[in-house]
Structure formats: C-alpha cells, structure tokens
C-alpha cells in the first residue's frame, strides 16, 4: 500500500469530459509509469510497452465523454493496459497472451533508508533479495497490491487468477520477507 498525494479522480474524469487537456496530463503523470511497468511485464519490450501506454491514454481521451462515469477508474486503466498489451502480443503472433511465468519484471528495491525503517542495512538487503527472489507471478501480485494499491479481486481479474491464488501468493511474499527479517534478528542476538 502506498500513500498517494490526494487527487480527486472523479474531478479529473469530469474535467476530461469537458475537454480539459491538463486533466489528461495529471492522469498521465500519475499513471504512465505504473501502466508502463505492467505493459512491459506482459509484452517484454520497451518499445512495445511504450506503444501500449500511448494507446491507452489516446483511448482514454477518445472515450472521455463516455468514461467519466466509470466507477473504478484506476482499475479501468490497468484493464485497458492489459488488454492493449495482449492485443500487441496477438498482433506479433504470440500464442500465449499472458504468461505469468515469463513476466518481465524489474529488480525492486525498498526505497527507504535502514534508519527510517529502523532495521540494519543487512536486513534491508535481505528484504530486497527476498522480494526479487519471488517467482514472477508472485512478485507481480505483490507489486500490484502493495505498490499500486489494487484490491485482491482486481489483481485476480487482471491476471486471470483465482482470488484464492492471490491470497496465497501474498501469503508467500510476506512469509519470505518475514523470514529475511527474522534471520537477521536472530544473528543479532
């Protein structure tokens, strides 16, 4: 879970419906990086992921009169990105349109100092290692829930998983992180 600066997305949706391009810019600044990460994970190419993200925002603008009533706008953007990524893969003749074992994920790092977290540098390293050693599907689920704030059922729908699987994957991620912290604490004693 992450705390975002407060942006009234309902207001952004309304402003877009009234042709306010600055509203689209706010949306883009906030979401382009996250959506790019999702697109990249699926299509595994920077150029293609950029096309996908561009397409998503162009579509949002084209549909602005209709989508200003969309309830869960954030999730809507993720779904659009997934769909657009899949259609790119289809266009390039890929058979598997969403291969959760082959997701291209970056190396993640907890972006805080050991002092802020009140743990040692070694413990922080161990945590980062634990996150990046998670299997791709597990890491993707963890990232979408923890970092992007998506609900379990949303992640399940987005990645075509059962809600139970999402629960299990999240459990595994926490268990590994906890283990990393605990090993270090035991050594300290």
């Amino acid at each position: 879970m992450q705390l975002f600066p407060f942006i009234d997305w309902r207001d952004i949706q309304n402003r877009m419906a009234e042709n306010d391009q600055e509203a689209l810019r706010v949306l883009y600044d906030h979401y382009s990086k996250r959506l790019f990460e999702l697109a990249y994970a699926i299509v595994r190419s920077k150029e293609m992921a950029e096309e996908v993200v561009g397409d998503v925002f162009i579509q949002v603008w084209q549909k602005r009169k209709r989508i200003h009533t969309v309830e869960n706008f954030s999730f809507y953007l993720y779904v659009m990105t997934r769909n657009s990524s899949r259609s790119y893969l289809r266009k390039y003749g890929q058979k598997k349109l969403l291969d959760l074992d082959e997701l291209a994920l970056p190396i993640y790092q907890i972006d805080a100092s050991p002092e802020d977290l009140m743990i040692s540098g070694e413990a922080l390293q161990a945590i980062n290692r634990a996150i990046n050693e998670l299997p791709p599907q597990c890491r993707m689920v963890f990232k979408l829930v923890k970092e992007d704030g998506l609900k379990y059922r949303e992640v399940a729908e987005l990645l075509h998983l059962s809600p139970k699987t999402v629960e299990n994957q999240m459990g595994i991620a926490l268990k590994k992180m906890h283990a990393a912290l605990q090993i270090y604490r035991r050594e300290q004693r």
Partner: protein
Amino acid sequence: MSTDRYWLLLGKKKSGETSPEELEELAALSPEGDEDTLDALDRVWVAPMEPVPETFPSRNVWHRVQKSIYSEQARTGRGRLLRLGLALAAAGVLGAIVIGGWYMSGRKVQQASVDAHPMNQVVTQAGSKTKIALPDGTLVWLNGNSQLTYGNKSFGTEEREVTLSGEAFFDVVKNEKLPFIIHTKDMTIRVLGTAFTVRAYPRDKTVETVLIRGLVEITTRRDPERKIVLKPNEKIVVPVEAPESNSTAKAPARIPASPYSILRLGKDTATETVWMRSKLEFDNETFEELAPKMEKWYNIHIHFKDEKIRKRHFSGVIEKETLTQTLEAMKLSGHFEYEIKDNELWLREN
C-alpha cells in the same frame, strides 16, 4: 497448514481485506514474542518500492498522445473563425518592413551565451515546414521562411531560451525550474508548460501569439515592465516598432497603434494552426473563407482585386502542391487571374 494460513491472513490484513472473523483468527494464530519483527515488516510494507534501474516511458509517448489530440481537434475544428482570421490577415498586409537581422537589441543574456557556446540554428525555406524536438523534449513545428536558434550546450540544462524569426507552434515540456523563453522582435514570451503558436516574421507589421492551452506570460519590447498573461484561445497582436535607423534604408512610417491587442478566438483555433497539418482540405468553401487558410498554409497574403472572386466556391485537398500548382487547378473552375510577387498574391476577375 496453519502457518501458511497465518501468512495469508497477515497479507489480507496489510491490504485491508480482512473480515472481523479473519482478524480474530489471525490473532489466535499469532506466535508469541514476534512483535519486533512484525513491526519492522509493517514499516517495510508502507515504504515505497521502486524498480532499479527506474523504468518509465520516454517523453515521446506523451507527445504521441498530444499529437493524437491535436489531429482530433484539427479534424473537428470548423471555420467559425474565418471572418476574424480574414480581418487579421487584412491588417497584416499594409506593406512590408524589413528588419535588418533577426537578433533583437537588448538581448544581453542571449548574446553572452552565443559567445560561450555555439548556437544551434534551424532554418526553413519558403514553403517548407519542419518539426523539431528540442533537447528538453519540447516539440516545435517550424513554418516556412522561419529560423529558430537555441544554445547548443546550455539549452535544457542551464536555460531554455530560443530565438524565433518567423512562425512556429510550440509544445513545451513542463519544467518549473527552467522557464521556457522565446525571444522575438518586439515580444518575449515566458512559458509555463503549454502549447501555442508564435508568428514573428520580419516582414510582418505585427507579432502574434495564439495560446492553445496552458499559460504564457508576455512582455513587449515597447513596455518591458508590463507583464501580459495570455489565457487559452486568446491571441495577442503586438505592432512592430519601427526598426533602428541602420537596419533599413527607408524609414517606414511609425505605427501609431496601441501597444497591443488581445483577441478572444472562442474555442476554435483551427485556422491558427492550419499550416501544421499535412493536408489542407476544403469542401465547397468560398474563396473568402479559404483565403485565411491558404495564407497560413503558404505563408502569403491574399488580395482580392475583384469582390466577385470572394464568393466563388471551391472544393479540394492541398498536400504537397506548390502555390502555383494549386492556383492553376483552382483557375480551371474559378475564372480568375493571379499575380504573385514575393509573398503577396493578387487575384482579379478573368
């Protein structure tokens, strides 16, 4: 598998997805003496997690989005403004002043940077257009007969200042630390992240800026202390000051006009940006309606010597055709004669 159940419930709790029953279950499963580690885990959970190296889409993505918006506007934009456009064009054709040199006086900062670093210069020939991406990602569409100059090394890092002679459409990348500044003769434009056109041809009697969106701040050479803020769909027209005596042989008459005028263009700014498009389409429009678009497209001034020609209707698409080719095609149905001299086009009844 009660330990796995424990982690599953802990995950749900952190994500705010637990029911009251599950919270009770979680409390029952919690091991003793693990509080320190769990607290540390809490702090890690709320800390941001970033990809290394940072991954983000390049600037081109946003520009592609913007381009698609502009082409949509161009498609839907209709010529409600044409009468205004014509009036402006008429005001602009009162003879020509040649400003010697496109560098303005009193541009000390700019001059200094010329000495320090060589300048990049982009020049377009009459009738040709070009699109430039500046080092900071700002896009510039440069109309024919125009010149854009910017610092080779300093631009984008130390400053964002360009000098324009001619006409250009700017789509400026936001950067609050480095304001984007455009110098033209008689007008300096300070930009706060925005899209707009600037028209400052040396031969024109006025310098113009039309704002499509965002906010720009303008100062004129005549009154540098006064800051004029331009809002979207507004156009500012600043009369050119008489050039310094050494720049032209003949001293033209001074323009007695007010320092500047601001015109509200309504929602439709299509005519102002018509020259940026890849083709100019017109469907059963009168020559009078078509003229301002052609003036922008070919960067000419059109004069009707016979009023009847104004009301004649034309349909067609101009893409790569030269002015002469277009006029020859129009002549077939239009019954007129034309004469071109420099950038002036005279039309008379056949």
